[in-house]
């Protein structure tokens, strides 16, 4: 099944790769957004979760720059505050899934044999679920359980956040595993590996010290792509209603709120959060620039 994994890997890179030109602009936008994520709570004009029931669905004005939603919450403040939420969840999910995936990928490449086969199978199963349905299934199972109670802390103060993170991690685990594995597979028999073995270094040691650094470039390249994808998934799942505790701001959930009134012409509730998502993804493509020259789909390391 070599073909499948090739097309698969390069699929992700096909999606979120951006042109080299103008990447500085995009990178700057990203850092700006990152700044907003950090200082968000201090630059909002209103309390993002305090509704004003007498002022619902007000169009953008001097008082409410982006207008208010169905509950009378200020949209500008929520878009700003939501930056932190979406970025954090995406980042941690990707780190979790990507980290584990990379490790496992290196391990599979190194050990080969049955370890490799088993891991590949697991990954196949995970990848045959359409992403959103995987999220749906995870929420169905874990969303209402109380087992997360003892683990809730800090930014992860509700089950919705935890499940979203797990969903993102599950989506990223296979991609990273496959990518790292395919890069490192040819290296298993390389000389330096043999040398390391002779020097008495154990399996995990070799993986950690020698293997992974060789995949570093690939991993980093994948990182920006998968973060962008993660933001989209979080928004998508929240849009269907599987998200964080209301009324905390999150872009996808905000679009969901706005969707109910857009047919009546109240466009501002959905427009601004969606623009924020598009902007975030756009800015991330500044980091995963592909070449403008054509990529060879048949080569193993595209």
């Amino acid at each position, binding site marked *: 099944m070599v073909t499948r994994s090739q097309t698969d890997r390069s699929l992700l890179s096909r999606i979120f790769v951006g042109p080299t030109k103008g990447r500085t602009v995009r990178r700057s936008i990203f850092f700006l957004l990152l700044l907003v994520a950090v200082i968000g709570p201090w630059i909002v004009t209103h309390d993002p979760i305090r509704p004003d029931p007498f002022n619902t669905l007000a169009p953008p004005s001097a008082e409410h720059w982006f207008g208010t939603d*169905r*509950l*009378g919450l200020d949209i500008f403040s929520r878009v700003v505050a939501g930056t932190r939420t979406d970025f954090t969840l995406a980042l941690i999910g990707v780190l979790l899934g990507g980290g584990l995936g990379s490790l496992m990928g290196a391990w599979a490449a190194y050990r080969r044999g049955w370890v490799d086969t088993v891991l590949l199978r697991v990954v196949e199963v995970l990848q045959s679920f359409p992403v959103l349905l995987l999220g749906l299934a995870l929420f169905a199972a874990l969303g209402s359980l109380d087992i997360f109670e003892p683990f809730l802390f800090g930014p992860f103060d509700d089950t919705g956040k935890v499940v979203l993170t797990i969903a993102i991690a599950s989506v990223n685990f296979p991609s990273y595993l496959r990518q790292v594995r395919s890069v490192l597979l040819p290296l298993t028999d390389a000389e330096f590996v043999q040398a390391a073995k002779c020097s008495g270094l154990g399996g995990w040691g070799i993986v950690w010290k020698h293997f992974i650094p060789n995949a570093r470039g690939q991993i980093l390249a994948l990182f920006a792509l998968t973060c962008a994808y993660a933001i989209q998934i979080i928004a998508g799942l929240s849009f269907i*209603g599987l998200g964080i505790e*209301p009324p905390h701001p999150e872009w996808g959930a905000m679009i969901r709120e706005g969707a109910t009134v857009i*047919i009546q012409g109240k466009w501002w509730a959905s427009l601004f959060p969606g623009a924020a998502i598009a902007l975030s993804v756009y800015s991330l493509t500044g980091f995963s620039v592909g070449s403008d020259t054509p990529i060879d789909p048949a080569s193993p390391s595209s």
Partner: protein
Amino acid sequence: MKMLWKRTPPFMAAMLGLALVVSACGTTETVTETVEVVVTSIVTETETVTETVEVEVVVTSIVTEVVTETETVTETVEVMVEEDRTLRVAIPDDVEHLDPNFGSANLTNLVLKNTYMQPVQYLPGLSQGRYSYADTTSFEGQWVETWDFSDDSTTLTLKLRQGLVFPTSGRSVTSDDVIYTIERAFGVPSGPAWVLGNIGVTSIDQVERVDDRTLILNDIRPSTIVLPLMRDQSMGLLDSEAIKANATDDDPWATTWLSQNYAGNGRYVIDSWDRGSKMVLKANPTWPGRQPFFDTVDLIVVPESANRLALLQNGEVDIAMNLSAQEEELAAASDGVSVLSIPDRNSMNVLLNTRQPPFDNVDLRKALAYAVDYDAMVNGVFKGQAVPSEGPISVNSRFFPLFGLGDSWAYEYDPDKAREHLAAAGFPDGFEFELIASQGLPIADAVAANLKANFSDIGVDMTIRPVSGAEMFESLAGLSHQAAFRGGLLDYIDDPYYHFYLWWLTDTVINWTGFTNDRVDEIVVETAGLLDDGARRGPYREAISLVVDAAPMLWLANANFTLAISEDISGYTHHPDGLMWFANLERTS
């Protein structure tokens, strides 16, 4: 063009005919004002029309010239006339199933109520303008022709109405059908068994068959709610033969078959059901009495409320159910649409679980009761389509003024008092808890978000967890929630005995707060058999004040029943269960 010609001969003939008629009487004045044209019979052959008669008609081909003198119409005229006798209703999701024994969601109950025949129903009361309330003190028999209580009210003799027929088979209704209906209720077991149990009928042995049309219910418990319970939508008469024909060994009561098929003889019959999209009801031709104005009711599934509103505004549907307060404002402002806002007993309550922390502490409950900004709730969240609550029994109940049930109400927006109670409870700096709210219910989002803000002002941190209907039910029944909000709570019967029996009796089935009070239990038992309002007044006043003082719920508001409806529909009768009765509706021009 050619195609067009081919299709218009009837129209052309009509116009030609009329033109000829007009030109034939040269001295006739052309009448240019619109006159009510009434056609008593549509004829396809020549006939002498000697008088103009009044009839209401919506004419699709517009006739602007009217002959006011008697004329012999000698031409064959085909006029297409259509009366809009179809009621189109946009509903939020599909009817779940068709088995009256398992009433659950309001929509399903609505259809069951209109398609199955209950023993009795309320008579309409005085008109309030565009709507009227049902008169909850008078009943008309539906399959029951007469009912007779014995002197001590422990025996009820029912006489079956003659001439009733099941429209799907043509078979006459007999008391065997009634007996089967009751047997099935106990056999499955399901809804109507509970209803019967409430009046003391717990076994089929209490039902005595006297003859083909007479039945006696023995050893019933005398109560003010016997007749009201008999109009519950779960008490629909079942076609025993049809159901028995579809019973199997695994499924002796044909629950699978009846969930998807129709075996009744209600005001309307189910004509077709395109699952997930549309259900069509047709007036039952065998119903004894006046036929309803609307001979067809289309129930069209439109999941998004904004879309339901759009259809109503376009005139494509006559009624749009379950719109949000926002959308109702828009509807009221649109041409041709209005919103019926009917003061009702729908109580918007937060249910607090008194059996576990933190709400096992009465001071914490009271703290919250004083922390709610009731004015913002009524006028902001409910947009003025509600009134402030004054206790467990709605201000709009018949019994509220009658028994003076608002005298013990104590709560109002007073954050200082709230903080006092917090301190008294030992939590001066606040506490945290979780509220579960019904997912997908727009009013739940708004209420929860506002409560969260109100409570955070006194240092209480409330987290909101939206849950599905199924999960909500489980939490409530299993008392595993801390606080819960599921929109309006409406008792199907307006009677204090019913209310206390459902909500406040220790461990009763929908006691979703875990409330328990020995004196209240005593009162419920004492008043069970009382039929005289004078005797009931005192005990219920006492019981109410006990419940209010314990604050097991946060009584936020009594919301109006609202319905967005086309302006040309009249005759809406509001029942205590909030379920629409299609038969009384009419279209006025």
